[in-house]
């Protein structure tokens, strides 16, 4: 089978899932106890006020009607207005999505930058002190709650040493990257630990593989040997892991964005759940599903590039 066709097939498998996700999240959102109007008006509003706003927002219509309206809107590319902020959901998400995407990508980059070299050092020194030390440190990274790591990094590196800004997002690309470094690092630590574990194991497997011995017998430089033969093969399994973890990175972004005051969609999602802001919850779930699917597709492509056997 042609590899392009194979990729298209992967895409085709994903697309119908979106319809399912759309319906599922619509139902799930309505299963949440409470409603957006009383959440917004608080404890003291009178029933009349409540009823008036509910009607104004169209939330008094039957659930099937609302579902049809939602799905129809999605097909027309209209996502409706946020109940809490009273501005179009599309605008809200457009304002917030870049920060989260950047944060996620940056944290994947940092996680790889940390995990790949250290996994090599650990694997090449398997069960000796550099290995044990690296594994212990990463274990701490893996076991420390994300909000605590964030607070620690903020306090020490930002507020005390003034090496980084204390949260926020800044203006312009360079400022964005600068502001997002610490949150990305926070998010990357636990992910790097997972990657490191997997990669260390893969390197240990690969390094004893016959083809590496054969490559050595060709008199290749250590750099070529490790980079081309060992790393590339070891990365194949790890790349899959990256794809599968994008979803949980986004989940972790919920807390990271809150601690670092990053204006991302993770925070928006949780705020919207807590506010029962249905249009935002629904649209955001779809947008995140698209994002994660694109990430999975990207890892498929990388994997295809790494491993010629995939997709043929």
């Amino acid at each position: 089978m042609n590899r392009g066709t194979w990729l298209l097939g992967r895409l085709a498998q994903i697309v119908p899932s979106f319809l399912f996700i759309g319906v599922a999240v619509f139902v799930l959102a309505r299963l949440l106890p409470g409603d957006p109007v009383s959440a917004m008006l608080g404890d003291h509003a009178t029933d009349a006020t409540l009823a008036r706003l509910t009607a104004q927002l169209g939330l008094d219509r039957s659930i099937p009607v609302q579902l049809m309206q939602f799905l129809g809107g999605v097909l027309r590319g209209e996502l409706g207005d946020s109940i809490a902020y009273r501005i179009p959901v599309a605008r809200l998400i457009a304002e917030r999505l870049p920060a989260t995407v950047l944060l996620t990508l940056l944290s994947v980059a940092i996680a790889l930058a940390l995990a790949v070299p250290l996994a090599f050092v650990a694997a090449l020194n398997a069960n000796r002190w550099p290995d044990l030390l690296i594994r212990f440190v990463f274990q701490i990274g893996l076991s420390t709650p994300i909000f605590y790591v964030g607070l620690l990094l903020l306090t020490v590196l930002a507020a005390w040493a003034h090496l980084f800004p204390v949260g926020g997002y800044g203006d312009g690309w360079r400022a964005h990257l600068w502001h997002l470094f610490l949150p990305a690092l926070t998010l990357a630590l636990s992910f790097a630990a997972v990657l490191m574990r997997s990669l260390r194991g893969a390197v240990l497997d690969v390094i004893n593989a016959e083809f590496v011995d054969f490559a050595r017998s060709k008199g290749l430089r250590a750099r070529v040997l490790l980079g081309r033969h060992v790393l590339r093969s070891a990365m194949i399994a790890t790349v899959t892991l990256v794809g599968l973890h994008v979803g949980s990175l986004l989940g972790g972004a919920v807390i990271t964005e809150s601690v670092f005051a990053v204006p991302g969609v993770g925070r928006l999602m949780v705020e919207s759940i807590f506010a029962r802001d249905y249009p935002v919850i629904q649209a955001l779930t779809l947008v995140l599903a698209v994002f994660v699917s694109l990430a999975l597709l990207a890892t498929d492509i990388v994997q295809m590039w790494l491993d010629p056997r995939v997709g043929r």
Partner: protein
Amino acid sequence: MSNGLVLTRRAGLALAAGFAAVPVLTLPGVAQAAPVRGGKMVYGRYADSLFLDPVLNDANVDIWVMNNLYDTLLTPMQDGLGVAPGLATKWSMSADGKSLALTLREGVKFANGTQMTAEDVKWSLDRARNPKNGAWVDLVASITDVVIDGPLAVTVKLKHPDLSILAALATFNTAIMPKALFEATQGATDAEKAKAFAEKPIGTGPFMLVEWQRGVIMKLVRNPYYWKMAPDGKPLPYLDALDFQIIPDDSTRLLKLKAGELHGTEFVPYSRVKEIQADANLRMELWPSTKVTYLTMNVRPKLGDGSVNPLSDVKVRQALNYAVNKDAVIAITTQGLGTPMTSFMSKSTPMQHAQTLYKADVAKAKALLAETPFKAGFEVTCMMVAGNVDSTNNLTTIQQMWAPLGVKLKIEQLDNPTLTKRYRAGDFSMRTASWTDDIADPNQITSYFAYFPNIGSLHSGWDNKKVNALFETSQEEVDPAKRKAQYREIQEVYTEEAPILFLYESPYPVAFRKNAMGFVQIPLGNNLFEGAYLAA
């Protein structure tokens, strides 16, 4: 409606209460040099505003900053107990108490440079009292008409005498908006126009909004046409620009303040107050508030599941109140910054009647409980908004204090909408809550806490005929002294009946860099930046 709302819009926010009425803030150290003009102040807020329309908004996050964009005819005094001139310079009530004549200030311009007229005033008040508009119409329900008497004169006609009308005209929902500009805004209905207008609101306030990224930042610049003059005779505000940065995490906001990335921030956790007071670069400000923190009890005879409700017995409620050592709660939750409640209203509420409420007495509590069918103790569940640190502290402490009575307190953390739903449906035993007034008058808090026909006395089901009647009378009372006596009686009955568990009042904890001066927060919560400046 009123307001309230304090109770919480979000999990995680520490809203507790109680405050120290007396210790008003001190601004030590810095000599009061002449304010400096210019510069940009950056202020950290815990949550963003939602909808900057004076009439159609719903939440404190809007109310507390809107006065920087809009003005009202009168303004609340800084102690919260009276009103001062605003867009109106003079006012007089007719002898029958049903007609209030106001003289408008001369030369007031909106931030776009157009003149404010009597027409704008009439239109704004008519919009505020339109029953179809929003949650706050009750505050101005007594108005029957607004009459234009001349370019600078309007008369507000009342259905019946209403001593709270002056306070109402100093409340956010009666802010004056530019009629022509509003009506020229895109949209078919008032609601649609309001949505578009609130994107870039224009009022007569000291600042105007130039950029707003929801949940991230709100950028204000000074209104060059602002009418109010500083003591030096030049116009306010001092600042050229004011940024509101949204930083939900308490610790992060404080770190940003310490790093000098913010000039000031609101809602400092009580656990951090001492630390800030000890920091030479910072200044802790504790503003007297109308904030009270308490537990609401469901006093209906049966609970939602049909079981007998011990809290329907007044002696049980009294016993629970006596068993709680408020000072210990205050020490743990507010780090000693709160003060015990002395009425269901805060000390900053006009006509508050201070009493000694249920001073901790375990023996008395046991004795009271012994007189009830529940002398063997019982289990009771209290709902709270998940993640709220102050609520957790309060309930954990109370849990400990009720244990000697055999009362087992179960804590149930819920997310806000779930809690609100169960609360409104009366499907609860107890819940944590706090309240701040929106109006400098006791009628709002009383209508919510004690007057059953409004919202069933905080949805507690407590229905006291005498209090209901007293409240109705007081609403039309023309004699301030008599009105005060009526409120005194209401408060005494309320204390005796104890439909809530009284806890504490607490101040608004705000922190600034040493050079950021002149901010004021009034007991109603409004953030005043017109006099704020950055010292050299």
